[in-house]
């Protein structure tokens, strides 16, 4: 009734190509961003409700934002370009350790540039491991990315230089100093992540709508046909690997610097890879919105499994929570692949369609 484009005329090409062509959509997004950037800090400042607790930022919102960013990165490669990767965790690790070494070894390097350069190193490694994708695909490529995962796991543990010869293998992030402004409180770190995620999400959204994104999707849908149509697989696949690894690398640097503070190589093992892969399968392959929805679901589910039984007075052990989480996530993945292969993002799209027609059936 109220969600309808009647009376909204597009009078320019720019208006026609807008990301959110409906005015109502734009308003919702603006309001949401306004709340995220200004509302949250105010709520935190005045200790209103749960937002007064540090846990809501440290335990939920910051990991949520960073993993959403990593999911966007993986979605570019797997969802848009169709190259399945089981090595997202390793690329997060590469970003984190590269950023750490750059800030450690280059005196006077601003933190922002270390994080971005960490992403850059990750992109280079991504291109290197993307080269086999020109000859192999599908499941074979999945094994190649698994090779990246295990190889870098080993590098982080065994190559002393990477961890600056720390005896325990754990390293500490530098102070979060962005050109003189130090992000110390949880709310500050939340804002840093939010800014990164917003910028990268906008960039990614526009990238996948453009020329490059269409090339990726053509490769995904059928690579031989795309090649015959004049799309260069070399260029399309390697750009997808590079951009995806860059975003995942930046997410890894943020995960290490902003979320963890000090970390061990185990932080980037294969569990992280499957976790991020599940986010995009559940949220929606080939959807930026889906990356967020998937990240929210995967992160909130274990907390729910923990909270709901205890609300009814049933005690559940940590092990059971983990295992129950496995079962539910696994079952949901199977169910979504069978009934809605495009994930939550598609369900959201269907809901919006219904809303436009409401209250009429069609």
């Amino acid at each position: 009734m109220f969600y309808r484009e009647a009376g909204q005329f597009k009078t320019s090409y720019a208006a026609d190509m807008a990301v959110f062509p409906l005015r109502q959509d734009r308003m919702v997004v603006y309001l949401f961003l306004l709340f995220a950037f200004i509302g949250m800090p105010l709520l935190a400042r005045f200790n209103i409700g749960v937002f007064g607790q540090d846990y809501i930022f440290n335990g939920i919102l910051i990991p949520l934002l960073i993993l959403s960013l990593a999911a966007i990165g993986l979605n570019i490669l797997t969802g848009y370009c169709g190259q399945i990767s089981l090595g997202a965790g390793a690329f997060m690790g590469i970003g984190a350790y590269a950023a750490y070494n750059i800030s450690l070894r280059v005196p006077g390097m601003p933190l922002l540039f270390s994080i971005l350069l960490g992403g850059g190193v990750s992109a280079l490694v991504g291109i290197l491991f993307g080269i086999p994708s020109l000859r192999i695909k599908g499941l074979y490529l999945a094994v190649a990315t698994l090779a990246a995962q295990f190889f870098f796991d080993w590098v982080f543990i065994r190559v002393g230089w990477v961890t600056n010869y720390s005896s325990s293998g754990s390293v500490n992030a530098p102070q979060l100093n962005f050109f003189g402004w130090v992000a110390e409180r949880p709310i500050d770190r939340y804002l840093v992540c939010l800014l990164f995620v917003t910028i990268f999400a906008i960039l990614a959204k526009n990238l996948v709508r453009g020329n490059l994104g269409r090339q990726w999707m053509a490769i995904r849908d059928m690579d031989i046909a795309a090649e015959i149509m004049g799309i260069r697989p070399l260029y399309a696949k390697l750009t997808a690997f590079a951009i995806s690894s860059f975003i995942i690398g930046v997410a890894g640097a943020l995960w290490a610097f902003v979320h963890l503070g000090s970390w061990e190589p185990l932080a980037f093992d294969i569990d992280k890879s499957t976790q991020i892969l599940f986010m995009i399968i559940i949220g929606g392959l080939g959807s930026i919105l889906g990356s967020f929805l998937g990240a929210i679901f995967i992160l909130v589910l274990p907390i729910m499994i923990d909270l709901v039984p205890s609300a009814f007075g049933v005690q559940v052990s940590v092990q059971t929570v983990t295992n129950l989480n496995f079962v539910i996530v696994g079952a949901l993945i199977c169910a979504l692949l069978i009934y809605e292969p495009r994930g939550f993002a598609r369900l959201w799209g269907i809901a919006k369609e219904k809303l436009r027609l409401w209250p009429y059936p069609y």
Partner: protein
Amino acid sequence: MDTLGPFLEILIGGLLSGVLYSLVALGFVLIFKASSVFNFAQGAMVLLAGLALVRSLDLLIGYGFPVWAAVVLALVFAGGVMALTAYFAERFVLGPLVNQDSLTLFMATIGLAFILLGAGQIIFGSDVYPLALYPTDAWILLESVFPGGILVNKLDIWGGVIAGLLVAGLAIFFQRTKIGRALRAVADDHSAAQSVGISIDWIWFVVWLASGLVALAAATVWGTKLGVQFSIVFLALKAFPVLIIGGFTSVPGAIVGGLLIGAGEKLAEAYLGPFIGGGIEYWFAYVVALLVLLVRPQGLFGERIIERI
């Protein structure tokens, strides 16, 4: 002779530990041949089979059954669990996904793997459970030829024997039985097989059951070696490089690939490891697989991949 002795010892140890990878890879190949599903859940099936076996074994011995009866009953129980798993996988996960592309099926088996892992550990517990089905002491061979002789673990020999029996059994099953012929027909062409009256559902259940039983065999050996525990799932991932090297559709390929990987990684660990920091067993197999992929994407024994639009 001073260097040949240790070399042979490492080689034999490596070959025999490679047999364990082959055991898991065999399960993959069975399912891939019959349904083109790349089964990520194979490792989870090994763990599930091991857990079912060891827990029921402990329980039965606790009730005072004689050991041999307990072992037989526990094996039957674990086989039953695998049959249930096969039915579940076919009926609820892969059946509805018929005709989807291979990546979707692959992701579905990742989901299945998590269901099996979670459910298995909720039902059977999630600690390390020791299993002692085979002797684990060492034999010393050829003491007269080499100083100190060659140390061979009896368990590894058992692993080799079991793998040999399985391969022989599977070969007979595939070549000589009616179901085996139907299996090969389905592997060749789904629709043609269906048109001559072969039930695809039934055949898929049979292959999942067969690979479940192979997983059970692998679980008995690995469980004795490491104890039944979660990390078996990660070791089972090593079957991927084995498959890449051997080819996805070849039973002999799985065996040869496993032997190559097992021997290769042990030798690399012993002779290259000291120069680049040790622990390279962890990734050596994967990197070898990557190199093989670059040169020969279909693996050593795989069928040539031909693509059409």
